């Protein structure tokens, strides 16, 4: 058994045995779907003429998937370093790519299950989401999105030394992004300078691409630009992640 396979298997077992975290990982985006869905039920978003659900579903889904990717690996790396598990791996010949790769595989599975569950619930008559014909594009879009946000999580997990600091830093980055890049709140309703600010946020690109793929908003260039933006962020964050990674607390 390779180091990658073994770490993935151990990570999978750890994840399914922690029922509480598992439940809330999947319930969290649904909670927002229900809350926003109930508040804005039947309303149309001004200008676009689309139902609010088609606006909010894509945004909440992309935020939920990104959030799980960031928090999952940031907590794991911080905890593994604190518990000296990274030290143990550091003293074995296993490559860093096996460590990150195993977490990546798990994050992709979490993202897939989140998406299926979320879209499934959003399609219930209460919410009435009708997926656009381009929905299979969600697969490459979500994969790129998870890659980008996982790498952001690697950086946070390398800097933070306590669970509190992981939560603080990750929330500090993810919550404003949720509001400013159109996840919770339609971009059209924001002043134009804020819309420009959102261009430096990776979530903006994920949102735009998911919006078109899932609900048909915008056009296919949104998917192309979204993927390109995510790829650029992934490269930059990946380069930073490699430089900042720490096996042990001090060296």
């Amino acid at each position: 058994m390779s180091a990658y396979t073994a770490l993935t298997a151990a990570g999978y077992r750890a994840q399914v045995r922690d029922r509480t975290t598992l439940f809330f990982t999947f319930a969290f985006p649904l909670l927002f779907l229900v809350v926003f869905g109930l508040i804005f039920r039947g309303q149309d978003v001004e200008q676009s003429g689309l139902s609010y659900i088609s606006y909010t579903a894509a945004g909440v889904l992309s935020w939920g998937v990104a959030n799980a990717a960031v928090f999952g690996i940031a907590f794991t790396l911080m905890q593994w370093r604190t518990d000296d598990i990274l030290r143990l791996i550091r003293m074995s010949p296993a490559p860093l790519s096996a460590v990150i790769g195993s977490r990546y595989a798990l994050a992709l599975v979490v993202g897939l299950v989140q998406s299926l569950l979320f879209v499934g619930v959003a399609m219930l008559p209460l919410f009435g989401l009708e997926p656009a014909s381009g929905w299979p594009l969600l697969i490459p879009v979500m994969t790129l999105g998870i890659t980008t946000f996982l790498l952001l999580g690697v950086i946070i997990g390398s800097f933070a030394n306590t669970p509190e600091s992981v939560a603080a830093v990750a929330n500090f980055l993810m919550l404003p992004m949720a509001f400013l890049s159109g996840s919770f709140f339609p971009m059209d309703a924001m002043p134009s300078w804020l819309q420009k600010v959102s261009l430096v946020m990776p979530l903006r690109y994920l949102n735009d691409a998911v919006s078109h793929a899932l609900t048909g908003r915008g056009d296919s260039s949104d998917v192309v630009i979204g993927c390109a933006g995510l790829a650029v962020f992934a490269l930059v964050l990946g380069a930073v992640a490699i430089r900042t990674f720490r096996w042990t607390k001090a060296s």
Partner: protein
Amino acid sequence: MRATPPEGTTPSAAVQVMGVSKRYGDRQAVDDVSLEIRRGEFFGLLGPNGAGKSTLVEIMEGLRRADSGSVALFGESPWPRNTTLLPRLGVQTQSSAFFVRQTAHEHLRTVAALFGASRTAVDATLDSVGLTEHRDIQVESLSGGQRQRLAIASALVHGPELIFLDEPTAALDPQARRALWEVLRGLKAEGRTIVYTTHHLDEAEALCDRIAIIVDGSIAVTDSPHNLVDASEAPSRLMLPLGRLDEQQAAAIPGVDRVTVQGGSLVLETRTSGRVLSAVDRLTGLDGVQTRSASLEDVYLDLTARLARARQTPGGHAETTEQQA
């Protein structure tokens, strides 16, 4: 500092530390330490807390970089991370270093896979530390001693040639401690090299071929426990049942340095036990008299205390550094 072993290197050296220093801020944690550990040797590292043992061991393991000097393990530098060398090393981690929510067997299986070790090695190693019956218990539910044994198993599962153990018996009960001694003696018999950090002097005496005592970042002495005890000036103790002699009489015996009452015995400390014994024999007979020769613990306490005093006196030099091997 990639390794090319300097000339005169004996091929039998498992560990070579050459002039290693490490400073943290204004504290010199390791101060120009040199030592050599032969293949197959059981080597003890002793010293007070904060003496620099852990830093030195982490530099040997390649986890920390030395400010100056070099380390070679089997002739290769462990720093930076040397993945060809790592499979030959086994490093005991602290006993919280377990993959979460795994059983003991699952954890060890994962560690084995990191090294590419086989499944049969997992079962055998678990058995050697006496955890076979706990194999399906989650690591979080293991007792302190069981966790410690699992941490040791994690260092051994891939059959390393050079094993670093850090206080491996700290949380073990006396039975488990003795059982572990047997495991360690078995490893030594197989020709493996063991670097052993401990505070248990009896353990160092029972297991180690040689020990180094580290005080204030430098090696105060390196020798076999036997030679250290032999060469020491630490006193032996004669214990007499109470009531046989009074304290004044005992103190008057030539060669007696100190008289105390401990645990129901009159304890006579002496550095010339033969002479004192025959004097006691003349006075009261030797029935019920026990003798305790100096142990490594006495030597250790004596030495570290003298070194601490020597360092407080300006210009004072520890005479024991001459013994350095």
